[in-house]
């Protein structure tokens, strides 16, 4: 026998309506602004730009030209190198700091404010600070010269504007290590000290306790924070533009150069670059998440 469907109560209907209303703003931003832009970007990169008088859709030649050139792969390698390196260093430093922050030490309350300072300062200020501090003729080089380590500030080792990208990585780490700390610290507070203490009493060394007890419990925080900073790093533009070593540039800078070219039809090439960045970033992030999910299932978490 079929169960009769109970009539929907008016107050349930109102609740449902209210919920939809709450979802609407973000939903519309995501679909109309973001989704629309994404569709347009993909269309343009495939040769659809009648407003420039170009319409060769579907045309894969922009991607072909881009992916066929050696410099694209150089740029990609640089982009990934800066992003991964900065993410990794931020992660290690941020986790170490978070682990220290849950313990008691003198001056902790002051330090709790201090470490968050970079989070409130814009990236551009950080970049300017890097130029002032790390550049040739910057504070560090002058101090080194003053201390007699080098005879002239210009002899200071080149930190900025090289393809090692120490300046770029320094700015990212300066900003992102506190972010990792903020996230992991909150997770650690929820986890508490007891499981660590239990592990210690059971005879586990400091390393065993960290890798077998603490790390698996803060992993969700590690995954979400690295996801966010890596996604930012791979698409960031200002730091590599100002502090980078010039040609070959990172992919976002390459895209910017295409967009800024006097020949506006190159914008389509720029769109192909942007879409490539999006594809690569989402591919990496998706793989990362899939691996994490597999780990979670393996340890039985659902």
């Amino acid at each position, binding site marked *: 026998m079929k169960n009769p469907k109970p009539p929907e109560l008016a107050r349930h209907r109102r609740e449902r309506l209210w919920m939809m209303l709450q979802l609407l703003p973000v939903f519309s931003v995501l679909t109309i602004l973001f989704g629309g832009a994404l569709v347009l970007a993909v269309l343009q990169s495939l040769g659809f730009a009648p407003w420039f008088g170009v319409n060769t859709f579907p045309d894969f030649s922009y991607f072909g030209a881009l992916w066929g050139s050696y410099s694209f792969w150089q740029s990609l390698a640089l982009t990934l190198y800066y992003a991964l390196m900065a993410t990794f260093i931020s992660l290690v430093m941020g986790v170490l700091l978070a682990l220290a922050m849950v313990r008691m030490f003198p001056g902790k309350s002051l330090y709790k404010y201090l470490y968050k300072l970079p989070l409130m300062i814009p990236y551009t200020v950080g970049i300017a600070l890097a130029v002032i501090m790390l550049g040739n003729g910057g504070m560090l080089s002058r101090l080194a010269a003053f201390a007699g380590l080098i005879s002239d500030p210009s002899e200071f080792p080149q930190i900025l504007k090289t393809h090692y990208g120490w300046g770029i990585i320094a700015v990212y780490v300066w900003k992102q290590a506190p972010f990792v700390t903020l996230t992991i610290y909150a997770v650690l507070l929820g986890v508490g000290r*007891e499981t660590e*203490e239990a592990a*210690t*009493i059971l*005879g586990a*060394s400091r390393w065993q306790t960290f890798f*077998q007890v603490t790390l698996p419990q803060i992993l969700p925080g590690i995954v979400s924070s690295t996801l966010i900073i890596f996604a930012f790093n791979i698409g960031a533009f200002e730091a590599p533009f100002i502090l980078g070593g010039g040609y070959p540039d990172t992919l976002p800078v390459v895209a910017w150069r295409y967009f800024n070219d006097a020949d506006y039809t190159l914008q389509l090439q720029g769109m192909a670059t942007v879409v490539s960045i999006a594809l690569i970033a989402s591919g990496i992030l998706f793989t990362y998440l899939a691996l994490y999910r597999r780990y979670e299932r393996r340890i*039985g*978490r659902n």
Partner: protein
Amino acid sequence: MTKVQLKGVRKDFGAFTAIENIDLEIASGELVALLGPSGCGKTTTLRMISGLEVPSFGSILFDDKDVSEVPVQDRNVGMVFQRYALFPHMSVEKNVAFGLKVRGTPRPEIEERLQEILDVVQLNEFRHRFPAQLSGGQMQRVAIARTLITKPSVLMMDEPLANLDTKLRGEMRRFIRALQKRLGITTIFVTHDQVEAMELADRVAVIFEGHLAQYDAPDALYQRPNSIKIADFMGATNIFNAKVDASGQAQTSFTTLKLGPDEIGQGSRNASVILRSEVIDLLLTAEEAPADNTFAGVVTAREFFGATVNYSVTCGEEKIIVTEQSRRLVEIGQQVWLNIQPDRIWLIPEAA
């Protein structure tokens, strides 16, 4: 089998003194409760014995050897935390085997001891479950198994029965008691519940505000507390001021009580008498009462607990609580006679 001694142990947290000078000796194989109200320093004492906290002064000895310099990992103690502190990302068997794994025990031996201990705590069928999928009693058994598998020389438990419901409590109590007796392992547990302390422990150390107030067997602590504060904490209700004379008579505001033979000839003094509510007989007629230590009163209130009933009996100015098995119910307003045997009365000398 380890004897545990605390000698002049003191613990300060900044300006706050959690423990002020405690001396305690726990015999090998003994089951001892640290009992006190919350914030009295009992958990701190337990953590100092485990090595998680370091005493500010004094020393802790295992089998007459000072362990102050021995790190937590090497003390070979076991701790069952109040909220169990199971590893949420590990299955039951991984949780239990953890202590052996980190010590580098060979795999076949781990398997063998794991099987053995899972049988002891009856968790074999749950070995692949995760802590979140277990009930409170099961989680506690996992925590106990995880500790016992490492064969600790001292077992410590923080409020072992506090988070369990009434039915499980009894089950867990019998389980812990039987296990402890079988393994003969020196066990120390912390509780704020005097019933829990009495039902489990061989000896109970009462701690008030960082001081060891009394250290005695449960029945001694219950029947012969050494201060009013302990009597009060152990649940004594009928405490009255009295003048005791050399002939062993205690003059209270409502009657004169004849005391036991031990109290005769001790000289006259002021003291407090404790009349345990369950040793007072409630009689409905004066005729059936013995001549000594019988006094009249009126029932003014009744509390029914199922198996037992509490009556408030007003005698003169005082109110006396009488506990009875609920074989009968006496009505409020009834005239009654109370009788107490002389040797059941406990005296606490008035503090100087």
